[in-house]
């Protein structure tokens, strides 16, 4: 269940995400995108992207665990439905009850209902076929259970299995706080075992040395790599967009990622072995960090040491020209140097 709307979140949705959705529609040569995600009771995303989305939309809403949570969840579901009707977008919308992780892992919600776009096979092996997945979490990426398993991470891996063979656009929003402990640093150290050119180790060290207050940088470094890795094993070609850090509801530190996932098709059939993305490890680690403050998108003043503004333009080419210019021409680095 996502947080209530904020000025920053609205700006990301309306400027950044919208441009990405439009580009994806163009690339896929379609008119509208089927949706799977977490719209939340206020359904801001569904309303803002109304004219870009197909009527077949599936949303999941948690039902809560404690009595109090359950009452709240029912209330949220009621609000969600009312808002759908008021906005005139109830047609084709399917509301699944349960945690989205469970829906992805089990292929069913808690009432035994399946996402409306599926291939008809039994739930545990069935494939989904959504054009756009928007997982707008309020919490962090990994909340481990007692046995040390992070269900959300498992669900992300399963998502690519479910979507295998169907290209899709994927938005992921997470809180920087999680209980993954040292696993994030371990991941960066794991990357260090690879050799990716002259500035590779230096850049990774810079990320490793970020303090606890700068956890967004560490996540920014590993999430694109993680998503690329798990998607390639499911035969997708992954393109990561620059991550956006912003302050959300109740000053929560949030990170927003976007990925374009193209299913690799050979001779009209899904390839079997793996996908190969055009971006390599260094490209991913070098993606600029965008910040959204007071509803304004800008390049974060603090970037990794090998950051080169000249290389940024290509990763922002989906944005309208004026916004691209504003972003690139107003960069002031951490030392106060303005780049024009």
């Amino acid at each position: 269940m996502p947080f209530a709307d904020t000025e920053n979140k609205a700006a990301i949705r309306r400027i950044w995400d919208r441009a990405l959705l439009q580009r994806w529609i163009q690339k896929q040569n379609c008119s509208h995108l089927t949706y799977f995600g977490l719209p939340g009771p206020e359904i801001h995303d569904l309303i803002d992207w109304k004219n870009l989305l197909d009527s077949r939309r599936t949303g999941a809403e948690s039902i809560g665990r404690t009595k109090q949570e359950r009452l709240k969840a029912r209330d949220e579901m009621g609000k969600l439905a009312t808002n759908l009707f008021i906005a005139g977008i109830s047609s084709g919308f399917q509301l699944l009850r349960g945690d989205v992780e469970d829906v992805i892992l089990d292929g069913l919600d808690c009432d035994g209902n399946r996402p409306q776009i599926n291939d008809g096979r039994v739930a545990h092996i069935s494939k989904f076929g959504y054009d756009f997945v928007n997982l707008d979490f309020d919490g962090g990426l990994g909340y481990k259970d007692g046995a040390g398993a992070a269900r959300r991470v498992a669900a992300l891996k399963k998502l690519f299995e479910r979507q295998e063979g169907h290209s899709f656009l994927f938005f992921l929003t997470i809180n920087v706080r999680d209980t993954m402990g040292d696993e994030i640093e371990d991941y960066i150290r794991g990357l260090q075992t690879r050799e990716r050119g002259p500035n590779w180790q230096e850049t990774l060290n810079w990320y490793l040395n970020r303090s606890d207050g700068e956890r967004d940088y560490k996540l920014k470094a590993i999430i694109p790599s993680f998503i690329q890795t798990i998607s390639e094993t499911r035969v997708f070609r992954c393109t990561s967009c620059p991550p956006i850090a912003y302050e959300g509801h109740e000053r929560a530190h949030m990170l927003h990622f976007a990925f374009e996932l193209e299913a690799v098709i050979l001779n009209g059939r899904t390839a079997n072995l793996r996908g190969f993305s055009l971006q390599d490890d260094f490209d991913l680690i070098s993606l600029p960090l965008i910040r959204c403050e007071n509803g304004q998108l800008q390049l974060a003043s603090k970037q990794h040491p090998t950051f080169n503004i000249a290389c940024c333009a290509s990763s922002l080419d989906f944005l309208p020209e004026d916004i691209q210019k504003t972003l690139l021409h107003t960069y002031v680095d951490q030392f106060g140097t303005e780049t024009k």
Partner: protein
Amino acid sequence: MPRRANVQISKRDLAYQQMRLPLDELLDAHPDELIPLDIGVDDIGGELLSILSTGLYTNPLDCIREYVQNAVDANASTATIKITGNSVHVFDNGDGMSLDEIVQARQFGLSMKSLSQHVGFRGIGIYSSFHLCNQLRVTSKKAGEKYQHILVFEFGAMKAELDQNKQRDTHERKITLVELLSAHTKISRSRHTLPEDAHFTHVEMQEISDVHIKKLGNREELKHYMIRNLPIDFDESFEHKDQINQQLHLEVSGYNAIMLILQTDGLPDIVVTKPSIPFLQPPVMGPIISGTGKNARKIGYYWACLNAERDHIAANARYDPRVLKNRDILKAIQEEFRAYEGFVYKMRGFTIGNRDRLRYCFSPKVQLYPWYTGEIYVLDTSVIPKADRDDFETNEAKRALDIAVMQQLSALEDAAESFQATGVADERVEKYSREVARIESEVEANTQESDFETYTQLNDILKDLRRQEKKASPKNQPIARDLIKLAERLQKRLANETETSQTEAARRKRAAKEEKPSPLAQQIPTDTLATFSQERLIQLESSSPIETISYASQNTLVFQHPRDEKYASSDIMPTTSNMVEMSQHSSPSVTLSLQLSRTLSQVLLEAGWSLDGDCKRLVTLLEVTLENIVLDKLLYQSILADFEDRLNNDLPASV
């Protein structure tokens, strides 16, 4: 016998005494008197809620109907029923409820609705989903109000509490209705602000059991149930929609027909409307009056459309545009239309009973009931529908209604009979105009096979024309008169010729030598004529929209839809004059039916009989027998004409 207390105690005094005195003492104080006995809050158990909702709403669809009915009562123009997961939503764009109104809505068995304006008046409808779902949420906003309010009934918790209640010992105190409802009914105000002019009501039934959700998920059943039980509007394309609605709005207090949208996961939306049945006569509308003179009063209002095709309403399915695109769906559309054959009682738009209920008002022999579609709106508030709406409660008002409706429907039956007779007469006039034209051309050319046979043929035509002239439409009556004059003139000429020099044998010889075929035969190859009779039978059986088969050139058969081109834009069917004009001038194509003798089944169909099953088999048998035995064409025609006479004049078979 003890004497009655001669002091009358007022209700108020008694109540006061009841408060002060134990009942035992009170009864002692007022021996042999019936005294009011107070029922307190503690005297009504929570189980009443379960008993009432189970008893009144046996079908889960009834609950949906209750909520849509509230939408109608709130003047909504559109209501949406959405079934997603295990929830059902009913959203309407009606007036919505203010805080006071939403608080009132939770009242049990108390309704602020008026009996004459609204259908829901029992004040229990909101609890109809008690057994269906675990939570009922009603969100509503009235125009001009700043907030929306949400009323929540935790039915799941109520049911759990009642179950616990049942486990308790008999002497233990059970939960009362007031306690049960108070503990599990909540209200909230949403911070989410909407434009001030926004107004709506959203009813959401959450956590419905699998069995019920499956039943509700059957869209076809849901659709038909809603059409049957709710004031659903006509399809936009129905030509008489505006006329009927306009009149019903004027005459029927509280009439509000809505558009209903059904939304289900993974399937396209269904817009539920009453179907657009093509080729109906303009509606006949009027009041249903009970009593006469000073005692006359309006107790109902009706509208009725007669099938312009002089057939069952279902038969018009063949003209539905969907059928013209895909003939496979003809049966489904026929079934859909069949559900609208005849009349049904409506109370502020809601159906009471079904269309078979009023069939008895029509004579069973003639079977004209299914030629009509219509509704009878009950305006008399003393006529009370039963809770399950299959009929009205028996009382004087109901009897008066039934009698007045029977009178009105009898008048409609007469109108249908007269319409049928006019139709048949017009057809005959058209047919005879062609036949007389043919005979005239033969006589002019002196190529008739036999003067006597032609004379007899004209005689038959004249006999029938004289009968049909009065029944024909005003437009066709002068044509019939002209035809009679022409036929008489031709007869006279034939009689003269017979008496003059040219012998029959000589004339026949000349005719045979010239081998001049009839105008029709000139244009139709013999093999086509030979096979035509068979084709025609198939055409009748399949109820094909192709009614006229024309022969246009040597090898081409042209199939004409009865409402084709010229006549599609016209209100009238082809008349004698334009048919003759067609055959003589306009087109080389000639209608084949000119040449064919009529069959028994055709005569019966024209008289309004419906030939199905055994009846159809019997008629086919009779036809074959007649054709085998009666080899003389004229005799065959005479038998048919006589039969037709009896049919039309309703003569008993023994006469």
